[in-house]
């Protein structure tokens, strides 16, 4: 700091005035020491992070008991900016990693936030199996229609006709309809929003977080640097305007009818919200109680016992 600027702040002995709290409301949820983030101006991922943080706030979650797991890619970097126990794993594997984390430590609410390529292409098998098992996870998939981190290649959600670096003459592969995939695999909650619909998205994430079982929220988000630029869809603002003009809220729509076509209507809303389907752990517990009765050991606090440590138990006791 220059002397001139130091002087401008007045003598060091002056009584400090009460400073207003200028912290950003999202600061408690973010690793401020990691900013600025890597995302491009106009990218939709930051909006999803804000909505997620807002949902945590609204739901008054014990933040020590929420963990975020991401895979690889632009959306995979979400875990790095959220101030929770956060795990940046391998490409496509956040769901099985999160499954292990959740099953070993039931008190954690485990959330997977990652991209369409990560969760649906390389991680597609894990996605459908976690949904089938109804593992108690919330999966937020940020769908920007391409592999952005690697420069904009075609992805499993890229609409037919869209240009990418690996479909220079237009995509000709049928994309996955993510809500239909999730619903048919067994997800108990399926919704789709765009990064424009921040209020509805926040509420939807909150619903997903509070609902037991495999809950899935797809978020359509602009990738201005690669996807929307190459496809001449305009600036990010124009893309958001197109979300406004071009999306149709249809709660309860049959997920098999919500395919996305290039330039076509985007059907958004809550498509699936099933009550009463037992989660993986509920099914496991029920089956073992039926088979083993009192001998079933999960009633015991296996997690502390197996780590086998006084220190851990003490720390937990302090926490509770």
């Amino acid at each position, binding site marked *: 700091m220059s002397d001139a600027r130091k002087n401008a702040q007045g003598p060091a002995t002056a009584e400090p005035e009460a400073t207003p709290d200028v912290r950003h409301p999202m600061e408690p949820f973010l690793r401020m020491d990691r900013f600025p983030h890597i995302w491009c101006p106009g990218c939709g991922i930051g909006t999803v992070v804000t909505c997620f943080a807002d949902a945590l706030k609204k739901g008054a979650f014990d933040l020590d008991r929420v963990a975020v797991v991401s895979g690889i890619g632009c959306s995979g970097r979400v875990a790095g900016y959220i101030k929770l126990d956060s*795990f940046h794993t*391998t490409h496509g*594997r956040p769901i099985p990693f999160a499954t292990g984390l959740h099953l070993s430590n039931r008190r954690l609410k485990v959330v997977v936030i990652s991209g369409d390529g990560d969760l649906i292409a390389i991680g597609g098998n894990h996605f459908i199996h976690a949904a089938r098992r109804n593992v108690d996870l919330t999966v937020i998939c940020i769908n920007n229609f391409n592999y952005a981190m690697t420069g904009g290649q075609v992805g499993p959600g890229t609409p037919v006709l869209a240009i990418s670096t690996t479909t220079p003459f237009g995509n000709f592969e049928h994309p996955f309809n993510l809500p239909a995939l999730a619903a048919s695999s067994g997800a108990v909650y399926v919704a789709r929003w765009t990064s424009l619909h921040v209020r509805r998205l926040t509420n939807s994430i909150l619903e997903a977080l509070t609902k037991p079982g495999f809950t899935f929220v797809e978020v359509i988000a602009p990738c201005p640097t690669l996807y929307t630029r190459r496809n001449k869809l305009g600036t990010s603002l124009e893309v958001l305007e197109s979300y406004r003009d071009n999306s149709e809220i249809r709660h309860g729509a049959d997920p098999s009818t919500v395919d996305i076509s290039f330039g076509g209507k985007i059907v958004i809303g809550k498509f699936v919200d099933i009550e009463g389907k037992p989660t993986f752990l509920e099914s496991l517990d029920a089956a073992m109680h039926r088979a083993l009765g009192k001998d079933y050991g999960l009633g015991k606090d*296996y997690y502390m016992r197996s*780590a086998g440590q006084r220190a851990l138990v003490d720390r937990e006791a302090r926490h509770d």
Partner: protein
Amino acid sequence: MKASPEGVLTGAHYLDGDHACAEGALAAGCRFFAGYPITPSTEIAERIARRFPKVGGVFIQMEDEMASMAAILGAAWGGVKAMTCTSGPGFSLMMENIGLGIMMEVPCVVANVQRGGPSTGLPTMVGQQDMMQARWGSHGDYGIIALSPNSPQECFDRTIQAFNLSEQYRLPVFVMMDECVGHMTEKVVIPEPDAIEVVPRRLSPLPPGEYLPYAANGDKVPDMVTAGEGYRIHTTGLTHDERGYPDMTAEAQDKLVRRLRAKIDDNAEKIYDHECKRLDDADVVVVSYGITSRVARAAIDAALDDGLRVGEIRLITVWPFPAELIRDLAANTKAFVVPEINLGQMVLEVERAAAGAARTIPVTHAGGWVHDPQTIYDAIREGLRGNAAPRKSARKPRKEKQP
């Protein structure tokens, strides 16, 4: 600390190696298992599926081996001891997340019951062909620990040792079994729980705020915490600093990767475990591991009966490799004879350590059966000829009769 009595099936049993490995895991305190069926390792998963519910463990059969490995890493961060088991093809698939386990420094155990490869190879028949894969299978530079049991009793003992080492040095540790050891049934004695030493997780004594996830201790290993305790850690497969935050610089890479290597290399003296016999005046030393160490027994006994001076090294920790031991011996030994059920893997390490001071004679086998002890005996005789240029035939894989 001592083993928790809950998982310990104290007594004398008649078990195969796979089941003994499962019991070792239980005794070591393993309470999470994620796996995918693959011959000849499946019996480990089957026994754990049956045993876990009564001791408070969670067993899950995943959709593939990538998922299995990822799940045990997640479970370890959740606070439990976790393992998976597999064989060659699955081991290949696990390499991706084994690398993540190395980078995130996650204690866990992978049992690889080896069969003949490459590819689908010989699913039901023995091989020792994944030894170099165990060392170098995941991309990048790192140190690794791998143990090689040679009996069902050792499958029990070494699995506990693998868990202990994984907790001590915070990395995935491999139990490199083979089909013969996995499927052979022998007496296994499981001791009283208070006779079983288990290493607990090295949890940080520091409170949140002061704790740095990757600030290493004097032994180059950082202390760990458990998710959900309020530490709000970040951990990543990217090159990272002591906070666990990505740091994409050559400096951070150098610091981190050298430490990942050094935490094994610098502690190798504490990690090494091998059985040595008659090394003082040996003309020829047979270096072997796993089932091959038992096949070599017949050849060594025959050579001893002939009055030959034959020493033995049985590698129990195959990685890190005891290069100094070989180097010191090489000065006073004519030859090392290295039988293994592959076309020459650990022999390369022996050769490197001997550095030309003594001959190194591989006794190779492509897999599917164990050696004919005669081939090992012949190699011992060959070795007595000393440091002369190896005869052509000594380098050739020996033909042998199949049963």
